[in-house]
């Protein structure tokens, strides 16, 4: 049985993955681009929190709204200045994916320069950092567990209200389901896309703001985390926002718990194989149910199980 610490760690990690995967899925639904720069969007949040902490000595939790805005700005700018011009030129999906790889590289370069300046300003290195020592306990629970869970509840609460209770939400869902038809009905699909990319960057940056409580931020952080983000989105279904919620928990929990379980059998050497779990999840999902869990038609599955339909 894994200890309490392993379990809470797994939940925290899953919460952050959900935030990252929701953003990725949102951008994919609206613009059909798998965004390889999603990990870098998270790093924007990490550095926002670090800057506020180093310069004003404010706790990273306080920086969450600011990270939200900073990440949102980067997400929006990525769409408006990089992807939209290419989409208007009729670029293929591969071209758009290459563009997000380029974007990721640009953000990696900017991160390096920013870290250099911040390091010079504050007199200590900013290339690698952690916030784990800033964690405290609320009612016997690690504060990061409480905060990250609250962020999830809040995000999905707001998202649900927005999508199902407001006129804008209806327009949003319409343009996700069928952009051409929505456009005919007078919905400006462009706004939907801009909104999706803003939210995508903003949610990722909130996750990035909390990520240093869980793992050290290094120059390669964006690269390390991208596999898990894609795994979460794909297993849930790239075409469904709630899929990201399911997928985030499946991938986050299995990455932590499966490797923990393997390490109790084969020794701690197995801990480095956590990403292999995420990769296996991607491959298995794509082979069995490419639409992801949210895309599975359970009626068909039940029929198949009863042997009524031949596979």
């Amino acid at each position, binding site marked *: 049985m894994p200890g309490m610490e392993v379990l809470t760690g797994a939940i925290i990690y899953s919460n952050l993955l959900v935030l990252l995967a929701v953003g990725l899925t949102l951008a994919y639904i609206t613009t059909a681009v798998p965004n390889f720069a999603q990990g870098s969007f998270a790093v924007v949040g990490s550095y926002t929190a670090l800057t506020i902490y180093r310069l004003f000595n404010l706790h990273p939790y306080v920086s969450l709204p600011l990270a939200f805005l900073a990440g949102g700005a980067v997400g929006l700018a990525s769409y408006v200045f990089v992807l939209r011009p290419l989409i208007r030129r009729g*670029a293929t999906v591969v071209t758009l994916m290459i563009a997000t790889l380029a974007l990721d*590289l640009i953000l990696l*370069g900017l991160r390096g*320069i920013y870290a*250099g300046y911040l390091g010079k300003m504050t007199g200590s290195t900013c290339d690698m950092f952690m916030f784990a020592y800033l964690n405290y306990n609320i009612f016997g629970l690690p504060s990061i567990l409480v905060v990250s869970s609250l962020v999830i509840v809040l995000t999905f609460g707001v998202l649900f209200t927005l999508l199902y209770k407001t006129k804008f939400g209806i327009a949003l869902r319409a343009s996700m389901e069928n952009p051409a038809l929505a456009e005919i009905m007078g919905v400006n699909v462009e706004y939907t896309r801009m909104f999706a990319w803003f939210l995508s960057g903003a949610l990722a940056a909130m996750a990035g703001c909390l990520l240093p409580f869980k793992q050290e931020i290094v120059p390669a952080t964006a690269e390390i985390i991208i596999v898990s983000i894609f795994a979460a989105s794909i297993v849930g279904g790239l075409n469904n926002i709630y899929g990201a919620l399911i997928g985030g928990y499946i991938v986050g929990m299995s990455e932590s718990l499966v490797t923990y379980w393997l390490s109790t059998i084969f020794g701690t050497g197995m801990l480095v194989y956590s990403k292999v779990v995420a990769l296996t999840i991607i491959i298995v999902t794509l082979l069995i149910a490419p639409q992801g869990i949210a895309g599975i038609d359970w009626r068909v599955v039940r029929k198949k199980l009863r042997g009524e339909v031949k596979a």
Partner: protein
Amino acid sequence: MIPTGLIQNILLWFGMYLIVSLSLNMEYGYGGIPNFGKAISVIVGAVVAGGIMTRILMAIYGVKGGIGGFSTATSVVSDKVTAIVQHNPLFGLLLFLATIALAIVLGCIVGALFILPSARLREDYLAITLLAISETFTMICYYDQPIIGGYYGVSVPDILGFLQGSNRFLFFTAIILVIAFITYVFFERLLNTPYGRLLKAMRENEDVIRVYGRDIMKVRMMTMAVGSGVAAIVGVLLSYFTLSVQANSFMITGRTLWTFYPFLIILLGGAGNNRGVVAGTFIFVTVMEVIDFYKSSIVATLNLPVEAVWLEYILFGVMMLLILYYKPEGLIPEKPIITAPIKKAYETRKVVLRGLRKEE
């Protein structure tokens, strides 16, 4: 006056990047396979040189892991082998060729297996899976120390141990350029066959290929096997040139150097066209090496508290976006294929047209 050091660096990296880019051009430019995991094949080559060949040599010369672990053992055996090469250059050559042969074989196997889970997928899912596999493999090589020494890296023997300093550099550059030339001829001949045209047809429309009875999965697997086998050579060259294998360096720069930059090269030069790739490689490598050569003065002039490498990333990222936007066909656009029967058909048409005109 251009410094000779700069010219030597340009030639060396021109050769390395040409090999990888030509192989990616077959996969992506011809076959339309978005291989976002190109880096894996280069790393496989490095694993062959640093993780497999070193172990074989350790077994031959009876060097044990010992207290310092694998990393230290490789430096002991590398010194030993380098000393042998100093007296016996032929041994160095054989070792080099054996490593390359092994890298090609393993590269082919990894390439074929690597696309297996995703060969039936649509291009976006395919790209994601290939990138994820490559990134995961890189991370394992870094975190799992026994493979290639992880953070500490491993040493490999100097296959040119009988040469010193600038002579070694020149000789190595010559070897790389020869291999790059052979690669060019190989791909030119391979792709000027029905197979090359099959790849282009697959890129344009997979359904048409299926209608003509070809198995997309088989074609993709074969293409990836050949492409990865060729790119694995570069991993070997890289290791023997630097005399070490650093998983550490692949961790941050693997995807940038060996996936993104080759894509930049073929899009700059012109995808689906080997001459364009040569031009693209030359321009890209020249820019990269000029930045590298003058980086200290660039950083000093701009008064930056940071390394020039971050500026390089931004520059190449922006360059990619500009190419995608303004010149997606590249500097030398792909030309229509004119095979002998098509040529004949054209000529017949000309003759007929001339005849018609005369009748008028």
